[in-house]
């Protein structure tokens, strides 16, 4: 069989498999984008684009590998002719393959960089800060703009830019507003941030997306998006129920006492 015949066959298999892969990606594996906010739209679109552009490349590698294993295997018979011209001398094929893959990777890197920049900025000026405190095995939420009360559940007002300042008191967790593609690691000893602008009243699940111990599977709770009036009422209720504890609460901080034992303490002297 000539090289051209092999190439046509490989191309045909690749085309059929790629179409099947794209159909599966678009109609079977596609996930709905954010429904409450626009914060995760860019991230969601980027994932879709990456999978759909990457699928034909992945399929080509698989098809070529399987084809080569079957068609060019050692049959034990003496070779009578060179079946395929060595690729190292086929500069045309080399440039085409490297050009396609290089262009794809550069395109996706640029897309991802712009999207990352977009989703890590607040959706408006003066966002409301909510501190997310992760601990084994529940997220609690502190509201520094309202006297610093802390709650078991997360509530935010609709159409208000929110800045989540996330930290952990023990191990690494991951704050994830499921279905909104809003997620960020919670790291002990530091603060990470992520933003949200909820466009619709309703509720969502907040889950931990980092395997964090025996009850990781239970580390989840609701997030309520409320009207401005309902949120004000909720804040007043929380402040009232939190009042007996207020005098015992430490001031707002990135991390809270006690520090984990066995970890090196911060250097006492200034760097020279």
């Amino acid at each position, binding site marked *: 069989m000539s090289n051209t015949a092999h190439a046509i066959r490989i191309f045909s298999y690749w085309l059929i498999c790629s179409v099947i892969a794209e159909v599966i990606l678009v109609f079977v594996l596609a996930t709905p984008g954010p429904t409450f906010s626009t914060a995760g739209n860019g991230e969601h679109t980027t994932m879709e684009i990456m999978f759909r552009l990457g699928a034909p490349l992945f399929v080509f590698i698989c098809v070529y590998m399987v084809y080569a294993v079957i068609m060019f295997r050692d049959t034990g018979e003496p070779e009578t002719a060179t079946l395929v011209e060595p690729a190292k001398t086929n500069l045309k094929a080399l440039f085409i393959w490297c050009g396609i893959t290089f262009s794809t990777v550069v395109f996706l890197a640029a897309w991802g960089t712009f999207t990352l920049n977009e989703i890590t900025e607040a959706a408006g000026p003066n966002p409301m800060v909510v501190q997310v405190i992760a601990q084994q095995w529940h997220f609690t939420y502190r509201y520094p703009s309202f006297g610093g009360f802390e709650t078991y559940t997360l509530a935010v007002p609709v159409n208000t830019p929110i800045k989540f300042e996330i930290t952990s008191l023990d191990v690494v967790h991951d704050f994830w507003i499921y279905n909104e593609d809003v997620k960020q690691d919670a790291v002990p000893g530091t603060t990470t941030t992520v933003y949200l602008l909820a466009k619709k009243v309703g509720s969502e699940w907040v889950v931990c997306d980092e395997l964090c111990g025996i009850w990781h599977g239970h580390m989840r709770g609701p997030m309520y998006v409320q009207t401005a009036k309902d949120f004000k009422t909720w804040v007043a209720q929380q402040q009232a129920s939190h009042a007996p*504890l207020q005098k015992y609460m430490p001031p707002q901080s990135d991390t809270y006492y006690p520090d984990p034992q*066995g970890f090196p303490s911060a250097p006492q002297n200034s760097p020279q």
Partner: protein
Amino acid sequence: MKPILAIFGTTIVILALAVAYIIDLAQVPTSTVHAASTGAHTASINIDVVPGAGAGPHPDWVQYQTFDFNAHQSATQFVVPVSSWVTVTVHQYDSSTTLRNAFFGLVQGTQGNVAYLNGKPFQALSSDLPSHTFSIPGLGINVPLEGVPSNAAANVYQTIKFTFYSGDKKTIYHWQCFDPCGWGAYGNGGPMQTYGYMDGRIQVV
């Protein structure tokens, strides 16, 4: 030895170890405590918190136990009736461990957002006083359990009592202690990470 035999033997050994691990997990030395009915839509649960389990694979680990100090019987699975007020009485024998998150010093989710320490109502404790907490995040419940003085005589305990609503949904909640009373750098190892000690499930039926 042929490679196929080596691969087969290794696979068998790994499978055997996995099965042994699962069997070991299934043999958690804990018991299920059914809330005792005390009337229409009311029930009660009595439990101990002891600093040393006294029995089982880790006799020196802190543990929630049945209401019999000498029985050394773990009690971390509870069954409570739906749509009911459940009164919990805890005999707490352990000394204090400072909370990492002062928030868990707040009594919440109980009837009147109050609990009773040796008969005296309280709504919050400073973070250095609790020894443990009894917390059900799914029901918004948290009760800090004050520790006994570190110089207290043996078998001295605090009695903490509170009542919570079990909810109108038949489901299973996770409960746990939020005080870093276990082992390791964060105090969340050992009994905090092992079934049958400082956490479990509450089944609403």
